């Protein structure tokens, strides 16, 4: 945009600028509308419901009619016998996922980006997205089948002359099973955003680097990666913002009593004790607590990132 044009736009009132922009980018506003609508309806409107964390909520009495109980549910959660274990397991799974599940999509995107054959490239991408669209229940039963005592993995081990291992009942394996199966399901899908960023890397810079004598690896290291670093940091920050949350669906589909020691996370605990027992207030309290921690950690890391790299979410 030319400097004069920019000045012109800044000189107009906000409404005039909006109107002009609206006229020019109707389609984009149209797309954004649904995003905004989603956030308003499903992310902001339900926030009012947080009050049930401080009430003894019973559906028949409604939000307003249920009695206030102050911090009762928080106290109950903090006095829970298993709290330390739940925090430990939640963090273990999330940190593993942050490192493995966070970095491999970048690597994968870089590799895919280097593929020159267009049809092969598209095939690789499509195949890698596919598992993302398998429903969680089906995906987990596939995983359980593969790791079961007579499953594929153990048949492979037996073929290699190794003894079969009951992976599903050994606590030490659970976080790895969780993270690796997550990788299988989400690797391709999570790499989309990096591939988009990679397509914006300047071809001129890459050519210049090539002329200066960089080989392919050096070009990736010195041109491509620095170019997508902002995307990487933003994506990592967003993951860190969920550090205290592990969805209960996958946990309860994969775990059994024998591996609770490493598999029981906050959400699965809350699911068993809160949701199954009809105690929605308790569940809300724990979730609220988790999210407060999430936000604090996010703010912290965002600040660090801004100081160190000048890149931040806000």
């Amino acid at each position, binding site marked *: 945009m030319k400097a004069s044009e920019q000045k012109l736009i800044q000189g107009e009132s906000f409404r005039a600028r909006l109107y002009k922009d609206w006229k020019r980018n109707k389609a984009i506003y149209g*797309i954004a509308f649904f995003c905004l609508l989603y956030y308003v309806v499903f992310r902001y409107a*339900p926030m009012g419901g947080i009050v049930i964390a401080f009430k003894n909520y019973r*559906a028949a009495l409604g939000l307003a009619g249920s009695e206030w109980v102050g911090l009762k549910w928080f106290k109950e959660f903090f006095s*829970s016998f298993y709290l330390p274990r739940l925090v430990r397991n939640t963090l273990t799974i999330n940190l593993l996922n942050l490192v493995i599940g966070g970095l491999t999509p970048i690597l994968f995107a870089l590799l895919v980006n280097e593929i020159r054959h267009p049809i092969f490239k598209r095939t690789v991408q499509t195949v890698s997205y596919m598992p993302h669209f398998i429903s969680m229940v089906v995906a987990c039963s596939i995983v359980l089948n593969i790791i079961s005592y007579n499953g594929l993995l153990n048949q492979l081990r037996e073929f290699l002359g190794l003894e079969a291992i009951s992976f599903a*009942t050994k*606590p030490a394996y659970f976080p790895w099973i969780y993270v690796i199966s997550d990788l299988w399901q989400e690797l391709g899908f999570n790499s989309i955003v990096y591939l988009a960023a990679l397509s914006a890397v300047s071809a001129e810079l890459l050519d210049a680097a090539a002329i200066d004598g960089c080989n392919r690896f050096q070009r990736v290291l010195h041109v491509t990666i620095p170019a997508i670093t902002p995307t990487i940091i933003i994506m990592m920050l967003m993951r860190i913002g969920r550090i205290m949350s592990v969805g209960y669906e996958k946990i309860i589909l994969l775990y059994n009593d024998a591996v609770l020691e490493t598999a029981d996370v906050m959400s699965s605990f809350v699911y068993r004790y809160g949701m*199954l027992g*009809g105690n929605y207030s308790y569940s809300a309290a724990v979730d609220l607590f988790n999210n407060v921690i999430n936000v604090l950690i996010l703010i912290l890391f965002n600040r660090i990132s801004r100081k160190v790299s000048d890149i931040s979410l806000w």
Partner: protein
Amino acid sequence: MKRKSKVLVSAVMAGSLLLSGCGSAGGAETAAQTAQISKESSDAAQPAAAEAANAAQDGAPTVITWLHDSYDVSGLDNWYDALWVRELESRLNVDIQFVDVSSADNYDNVVNLTIAGDWPDVIFWDWSKYSGGLDQAVADGLVVPITSNPAYSAKVPHYLDIVENNDLMRKALTQADGTISGFAHVEESAQRNAYSGYTIREDWLKRVGLEIPTTVDELHTALLAFKEQDANGNGDPTDEIPMSDRNSLNLIKELGAAWGLIYNTMQLDPETGKVNFWTEVNDGANFRDFTTTMAQWYAEGLIDPEFTTNVQDDINAKVTSDRLGFFHSNTNRFPSYNAILATSAANPSDVKLTGLERLSYQYNPSKHLTVATNLKNWCAPAELTVITKAAEKDGSIDKILELFDYMYSPEGQILMNWGVEGESFEYGADGKPQWLDKVTNDDATLNSDKVQEYCIPTRGGFPKVMSLDAWMSIDCVGAEAQEALDRNWGADKDILIPSITVTGEDAEEYTRIMNDVNTAVAETFLQVVIGEKGADAIDTLYTTLDAMNIQRAIEIYQKIFDAYEAK
């Protein structure tokens, strides 16, 4: 029209998720999915002529809105298509409008969302999931108490007659303040609840030269023989799985009865007759012996190493491939097992599945205990159909009470369990109802879906009496299954406590203690059984249980049980 808008909403949701580039697993989506419930009129399913005739007779039918989990029977789209619903509507001149529940998996959420909004006239739910139970739902003004109002009591004579004449039913349904507010599906005989038990391959026993086991030791010998010998006679001595279980441990739980223990729940102590928790019986000796015995069996390779992840389909596959010798089974599986084994077994003509009598109690061989709590449940004490204040407000409650009572009346019982004479059944020479060919479809085994187009002999969840005969004609077919039913029912019921909803002042403390206790015990039990931890983990468990105050929980439950007994 409604369906279209649903598709649109999900497309928009999916679209915005993709565009915004960060989906997340949260409660909001679930709520959105389950919120898609709407009331649908039953007009389409009603024969127009019958309706017109009714309207002429008694005026317009009374509209009853009814929340019930969705119909999951193949061949039927919803409840209205079933003969019994149409009959009830025309006989009682009512228009039942079932609330359309689109997502069966989330019924609890559906109920919660529904009662947070406009209440339907009638709700079926497991009220133990309402914080504080049914007592609280009445106190909160949601549910109409029935027997405290003489005018209402007078309208349900059949129901109250049935309940008052059975002590276990009356105790189960009477709330703390002495009223009855819920309409349960009650049993003609609790024997119907004896449908599950353990089953052994009698032909395998014969092949290895053993008798039917009656004690733990004899069972152990049999399982060892299954493992070591070619019990299925296919020439391969290694393909037998002596015993397997589901991830819910149905079989292992039932085996616990031989040690007088009910898995992870309050029970009556086989020695003292008082309330106790299974880890505490005989100062823990029973639990320790049971756990270490199972661990030994697992180590010996007698228990399928996949049992912690098996689901019912896995068990079915192992049974029908002629590889499994000892397993837990419901009576309705016998016919299909037999049908498949008739072609898959190495020696099809020998195949014999036998439901075992309960094994002797380890500490008193004359006892044959069972853990099947249902044998003392003559009705589902918490899964109840209730009438809400909305029905009182719009005046439909009188008609609803009339309808419910009809469903319990002799005439109504026939309709609910057998359908309509000439349509689905006819009376045989012995005066008992018999299915018409079109219901049983000339195939006496796989008709459990077909029959539900007419009536619901195998289903609870509605105000009704479960007929033992009608149920058996569908879910307990054949000599083997009926023998198993008798054996399951014949077990000693000494340690069983009927299902009691824990309510009242101590309920919260009890729930809190038991939440932790159940996790600790379930975890240690399984870890010791599969050899992940040694027997010393049991000592650690006892220290933990004391720290969690298990004795206090037992004390609370004893109080609740005493109050129940005093009803």
